[in-house]
C-alpha cells in the first residue's frame, strides 16, 4: 500500500455513512457523521463507472471550487476521499432548502424574513464573484438552510471561473426558470450578471410563493420573461438582436412590477427591477445590491434563528399544520434534503424528477380549495 492509498484510508475512516437520503443523476447522497465527534455530515458518492471519459465534469467542478471557498453562506466541503472506484465528497449537513420553505404553505413570510434570505444569498454570491467564480445554477433548491437558519449556497456542479478574454462559455447553464435572457439567446461571452438575474427570480419567488417566470421550454421562457417585463428594445439592451440564437418572440408591453407585487415597498421593487435589467452590464452587481437602500430600510432583516423553518424541524401549534402532517413526529424518514437531492433538473422537460405524484387519494384537500 503506497502513501497515497494510506492517506486515503485514513481519511475514509474519519467518516461514517449512516443511510441514504437521496439520489441525483450523478450522485447518491448519504447522511453520515464524523467518527470522532459524531458531527452530522452529508456524503455525496459520485458514480464514476458510467462515464467513459473519466470523472463527471460537475464532480470536478464541485471539488475544484468548494475546496477553495470558505464562507458562512457557502456550503463547506469537509473532505474528499475515494472508495473502490467511487469519489466521495463530505459536505456540511443541512436540514432543508429554500424551495421546501417556499412550498410549505403553513409558513408565513414576513418582509424581514425575505430580506434576511436575500442578504445571505447575496453575501454568499458576492463571495463567489469576488473570487472570480460564477455559480451558474442558482435557484431556491440550491440554497440550503442550516439548522441555525443560515442560508448556504450549494451545488457547484456548474460553477466555473470567469472566462479569459476571448474564451467561450456554454450557454446551456442555469435552470430554465432562473436563466437570464442573454443565455436564452445563446450568448457565449457573459459575466457574473447571469447569477444576478437568478437572484432576481428567487427574490420574486420569495414574495409570490410561486416561481416568477416558469417557462415550459427555452422558447417559452423568453416569451414568459417578455410578457412579464416587456420586450426589450435596442435602447434597453443594445446589441441583443445580434446574439447567436436571437429570434424575435413578439412584442409585449412593459407592465409595472407594482401590478404583480402589490404589497411590496418602493425599495423592494426598485431592487427587484435592478436585478431584472435586460442589459447585463447595467444589471446591479452583488456588492452594490448589498448596499441597496432596501436592506437598510426598516424592518431590519430577521435574525437567522427566527426565520421560518419547514414543519419537520420545528414543532408549531396545530393551527398552522395542514391536513397531511404526521403528528407522531418525523417518523422513520426524516425530511432532510441533502445537497443535490431531488432537484429540478437542468433540462428535464419530460419531468423525470422524483417528486411525489401529487395524487394522493385524499380528496379532502380539493374539497377544501373548491
Amino acid at each position, binding site marked *: 500500500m503506497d502513501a497515497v492509498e494510506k492517506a486515503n484510508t485514513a481519511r475514509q475512516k474519519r467518516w461514517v455513512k449512516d443511510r441514504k437520503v437521496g439520489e441525483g443523476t450523478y450522485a447518491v447522497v448519504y447522511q453520515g457523521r464524523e467518527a470522532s465527534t459524531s458531527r452530522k455530515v452529508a456524503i455525496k458518492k459520485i458514480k464514476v463507472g458510467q462515464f467513459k471519459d473519466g470523472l463527471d465534469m460537475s464532480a470536478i467542478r464541485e471539488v475544484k471550487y468548494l475546496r477553495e471557498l470558505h464562507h*458562512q453562506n457557502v456550503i463547506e466541503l469537509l473532505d474528499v476521499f475515494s472508495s473502490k472506484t467511487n469519489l466521495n465528497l463530505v459536505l456540511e449537513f443541512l436540514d432543508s432548502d429554500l424551495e421546501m420553505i417556499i412550498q410549505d404553505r403553513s409558513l408565513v413570510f414576513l418582509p424581514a424574513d425575505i430580506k434576511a434570505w436575500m442578504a445571505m444569498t447575496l453575501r454568499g454570491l458576492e463571495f463567489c464573484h469576488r473570487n472570480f467564480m460564477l455559480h451558474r445554477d442558482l435557484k431556491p433548491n440550491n440554497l440550503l438552510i442550516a439548522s441555525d437558519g443560515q442560508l448556504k449556497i450549494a451545488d457547484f456542479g456548474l460553477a466555473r471561473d470567469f472566462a479569459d478574454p476571448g474564451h467561450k462559455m456554454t450557454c446551456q447553464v442555469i435552470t430554465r426558470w432562473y436563466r437570464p435572457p442573454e443565455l436564452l439567446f445563446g450568448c457565449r461571452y457573459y459575466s457574473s450578471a447571469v447569477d444576478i438575474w437568478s437572484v432576481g427570480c428567487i427574490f420574486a419567488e420569495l414574495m409570490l410563493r410561486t416561481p416568477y417566470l416558469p417557462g415550459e421550454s427555452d422558447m417559452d421562457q423568453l416569451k414568459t420573461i417578455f410578457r412579464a417585463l416587456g420586450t426589450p428594445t435596442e435602447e434597453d439592451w*443594445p446589441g441583443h438582436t445580434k*446574439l447567436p440564437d436571437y429570434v424575435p418572440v413578439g412584442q409585449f408591453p412593459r407592465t409595472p412590477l407594482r401590478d404583480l407585487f402589490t404589497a411590496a415597498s418602493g425599495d423592494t421593487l426598485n431592487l427587484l427591477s435592478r436585478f431584472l435589467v435586460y442589459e447585463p452590464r447595467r444589471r446591479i452587481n452583488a456588492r452594490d445590491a448589498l448596499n441597496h437602500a432596501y436592506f437598510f430600510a426598516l424592518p431590519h*432583516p430577521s435574525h437567522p434563528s427566527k426565520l421560518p423553518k419547514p414543519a419537520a424541524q420545528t414543532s408549531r401549534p396545530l393551527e398552522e399544520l395542514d391536513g397531511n402532517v404526521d403528528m407522531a413526529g418525523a417518523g422513520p424518514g426524516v425530511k432532510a434534503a441533502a445537497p443535490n437531492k431531488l432537484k429540478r433538473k437542468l433540462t428535464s422537460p419530460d419531468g423525470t424528477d422524483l417528486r411525489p*405524484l401529487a395524487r*394522493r*387519494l*385524499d380528496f379532502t384537500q380539493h374539497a377544501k380549495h*373548491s
Partner: protein
Amino acid sequence: MSNRANVGGWLKGKTVRKSGIISNVHTARSSTPQVQSTSSTLFSGGVKDASGRTTEYFSMDDQCPVCKSDRYLNPKLRLLVSSCYHKMCESCIDRLFTLGPAPCPICQKVLRKLAFTPQTFEDLSSKEFNKRREDFFDLHSYNDYLEEVEDITFNLINDVDIPQTEARILAHRKENSALIELNLQREEQYAQALKEQEELERQEKEQRALELRREQEIEREERETAQREIIDRLETSTKSAAKVIAKSRAEAMKRSSARSTTTTVLRSNAQLLRARAAQSTVVPDPPHVPLQDDWYAYEDLYTIRDQYDDMYSDAVRKDREGIMRAGGYQVEEAWDRALRCAVAGLDLAPLSGLNPSPGRTDSAVAFA
C-alpha cells in the same frame, strides 16, 4: 313503518344535496369527475364523517349501470355502492331491495338495502391504504404504491377485474395489517389533537369574551361611583363646583387609560405569538451589514487603469461593441482578476511553523 324510516336514514341525505347538484348542472357541465364539496354545517350526503372532511364522490357523467338513467335525465341521481362494489342508483335500490334481501343485478350476490354505502374513497384510502411517505424507503416505492392504490380504486369504480382486485386488497391487508393499524392510530391521534386544539381555542375565546364583559362592568361601576362621588363632594366640600368636577374627571381618565394600556399589551402579545408561532421574540433583529468581512478594506493597494497592453484581449478590445457587448462580458473583470491574483498575498507574512498567521490566510489559500 317508523322503523323503516330510520333504517333508510342515509337515503334522506339526498334532500340536502338537491340544490347543489342542480346548480352544478347548469353552470359547469364538464365531463371530468368532480368531488362535490359539502359544507361542514350540512349533513354531508350520508357520508358518516362528522368532521366534513370526507365527501361523496360525484361525477357529471354518472350513469346507473342497472337502469341506465344518467345525470342528464335525473339531476338528483345518486349512486351508492354495494358490498360487492357494484354501484346503482337510489331508485333501483329502492325497487330491488325494499322487499328484503335480493340478488345483485350484476353479480347475483345476495344483498340488503342496508349494506349500500355512499361513494367515497374513505374506506380504501384512509382505512386500509393509509401508508405514508415515511413508511417507504425511497420516493420511487412510495410513488409505486400511490399508483397501485389508484389502480385498485379505478378498478373498483369501473368494475374491472373485481375478484382479482379484491384479492389484491386482501393481500395488502394481510401483509400490512400492523402498519395499517399504526397509521390508523396516528390518524386518530392527529384528529384527537386537532379536536383538543379546537377546544383550547374555544375556551380561550370564551375566556376573552368573559374578560371583556367583566371589564365593561367594572368600567360602568366606576363611572357610577365617580358620579356619586362628585355629588357627594359637591354636597360636602366648600370649593367651587367646577373645580371639583374637573378633578374627579381627571382621576377617572387616569384609571381608564391605565386599564386600556394593559389590555392592548395583552392583545398585541397574543397576535405576535400567533404570527411567529412559538418563536422567541427576545432575539433582536440587528441592522443590515452589507459584508461581514474586511475584504474591500484592502482595495486601495492598487488601481485599475483604463487600458493595458494585453495581447490576449486585443481582439476583444477591438470589438468592444461586438459579440461580447450584449452578453455583458467585461474585459476589465479579467484585468481585475489578474491584478488581484498578483498582489493578493503580498502583505502576508510567510507561513512559519505549524501556526498559520492570522488574518488573510483564507484569501491566500484561495489563490494558492
